[in-house]
Every structure is written in C-alpha cells, then in structure tokens.
C-alpha cells in the first residue's frame, strides 16, 4: 500500500512525468478518434430527426460536450492551481497553465455553437441571459488567467498569481451549472442530470455521451502535449533535460 503511494509521488516530478506523458499521448489520441467517430456516426446517422427542431438540434453533439468540458477543465485547472499554491509542487502550476488554453477553446466552442443554435431556434445569436452570460465570464476567466500568467516573467510567481485568480473564479462554475434553475433563462434546463433520468431519446443520449468522451480524451491528449512543452521551457537548466533522447540526437 505504502509502495503505491510512493509511486504516485514519483510521477509528480517533471522528470518522471515528461516521458510518461509522452507515452500516454498516442493512446489518448486513439481514444479521441474512436469515441469521436462512433459519436459522429450515431449523431448523424442513427439519432433520429428531432420532432421540434428538425436537423438543427444535431449541434447538441458538440455544444453540450464543449460546455461540459469548459466547466470540468476549469475545475481541474483550479485543483492543480490549489495544489501548487498549497504544497509548492512544481508540476502543478505547469498542469494548470497547460489546461487553460484548452479550457478557453472549449468555452469558445460552447459560445460559438450556442450562437449558431440560438439563431434558428430562438431567433437570436445572443441574449444576456444568466446561462450565456456566466459562460462568457468563464471564457474571460480563462483568457484572464492566460494573460496574467504571460504578464509575469518569473514562472513561480506567475503560477501563484494565476492560482489565486483560478480559485476565485471557481465560484462561477456552480453559477453556470445552476443558472437555468436559479433564474428564468431563455436557455433550456438540463436534459441530462445526475438526479433524474434523461429527457431525450436513447440514441441522442448515446451520441452525446460518446462525443463527450471524445472531447475529454482530446483535452487530455492536447494538454499533455502542451505540458511537455512547458516542462522543457521551465526545466531547461535541470540536468535531466540534457540527458533526454530528443536533446542528444
């Protein structure tokens, strides 16, 4: 038991995590492709036309996964930021920085696909309703985090400043999630929740869940790629970096 614990801590050092991440990345890309192809197939060819929204509803297969990931990545980012702030672990700050651009991308996709869905269904690209506005704030939080970190030259201080911002911003996540309950919004309520059975056709649900898994695997693959770059940038004066195969060749 204690052996296992030691092994986990071992991977918390950039030196051991760098090659591990390199080995894992191809697997996460393979999973992204597998889930993505299955999800797209179900989304376009198996899931039936929606009775009310026609074919336009198919945007759901990327809108919901992107929105979920935009919130989930923020929580993971804040978790790493808090860990770095509390325990001063080197890798944590790098993980948080590596996740931010992917989170921003997901938030942007959520807003973009939402606008393209809102136009035909609600007759408008955008309304200042609670769900949309809080998601926009999430997008700005990601951008603010990235901007703040890039404005500070010392990476350790950048980590700390970013961590504080990330942790303060966490309050926005439940606001986004519950906004459709707390306020009267144009945005519909949750079709899928943990407490009741989903209010949508089985095949639509499967398509959406597969796409959510694909987005999840994509996020892991791309942020592991980015964290490897960040490790190289920050650890360039460490002896182990010079011993790497890709440096010596």
């Amino acid at each position, binding site marked *: 038991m204690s052996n296992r614990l030691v092994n986990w801590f071992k991977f918390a050092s950039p030196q051991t995590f760098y090659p591990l991440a390199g080995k894992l990345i191809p697997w996460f890309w393979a999973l992204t492709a597998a889930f993505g192809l299955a999800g797209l197939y179900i989304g*376009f*060819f198996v*899931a*039936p*036309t929606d009775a009310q929204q*026609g*074919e*336009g509803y*198919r*945007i759901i297969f*990327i*809108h919901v996964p*992107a929105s979920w990931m935009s919130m989930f990545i923020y929580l993971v980012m804040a978790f790493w930021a808090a860990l770095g702030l509390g325990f001063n672990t080197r890798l944590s700050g790098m993980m948080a920085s590596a996740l931010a*651009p*992917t989170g921003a*991308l997901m938030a*942007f*996709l959520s807003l*973009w*696909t939402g606008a*393209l*869905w809102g*136009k*035909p269904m609600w007759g408008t690209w955008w309304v200042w309703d609670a769900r949309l506005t809080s998601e926009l704030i999430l997008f700005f939080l990601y951008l603010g985090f990235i901007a703040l970190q890039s404005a500070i030259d010392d990476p350790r201080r950048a980590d700390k400043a970013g961590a504080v911002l990330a942790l303060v911003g966490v309050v926005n996540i439940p606001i986004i999630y519950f906004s459709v309950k707390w306020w009267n919004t144009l945005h519909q309520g949750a079709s899928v929740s943990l407490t009741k059975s989903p209010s949508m056709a089985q095949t639509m649900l499967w398509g959406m869940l597969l796409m959510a898994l694909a987005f999840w695997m*994509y996020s892991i*693959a*791309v942020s592991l*790629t*980015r964290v*490897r*770059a960040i490790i*190289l*940038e920050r650890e*360039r004066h460490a002896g182990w*970096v*010079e011993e790497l195969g*890709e*440096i010596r060749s």
Partner: protein
Amino acid sequence: MNWNSASEFFAMGGHALYVWGSFGACAALMIIEPILARKRRSKALTELKREIAARKDYETET
C-alpha cells in the same frame, strides 16, 4: 438511416449554415490547437539544443 442522398445530408433540413458552422469551427480548432501545442514543444527543444551547444562551445574555449 436519416438521409436519402448526400445533398440531403449536407442540406441538414435547411439548417446547413448552423450545423456545419458549428461542426466546422469545432474541427478547425481541434486541428489547429494540437499543431500549436506540438510546435511549442519543438520550439522549446530547438532552443534547448542551441543553449546546450553554446554552453559546450564556451566550455571548450575556456
């Protein structure tokens, strides 16, 4: 099967702009982001190699 022809598939029941605008933007960004992330790593590698080479030169000179 929902579609009788390829053109029907691309028309998306009149919602082509919205559906393909969503999926297109998503695909484009998900192709660009990994390319940028990989470029960042290869840039870091090149700079590291140059730094190490410069240090070795300096060490042999002195």
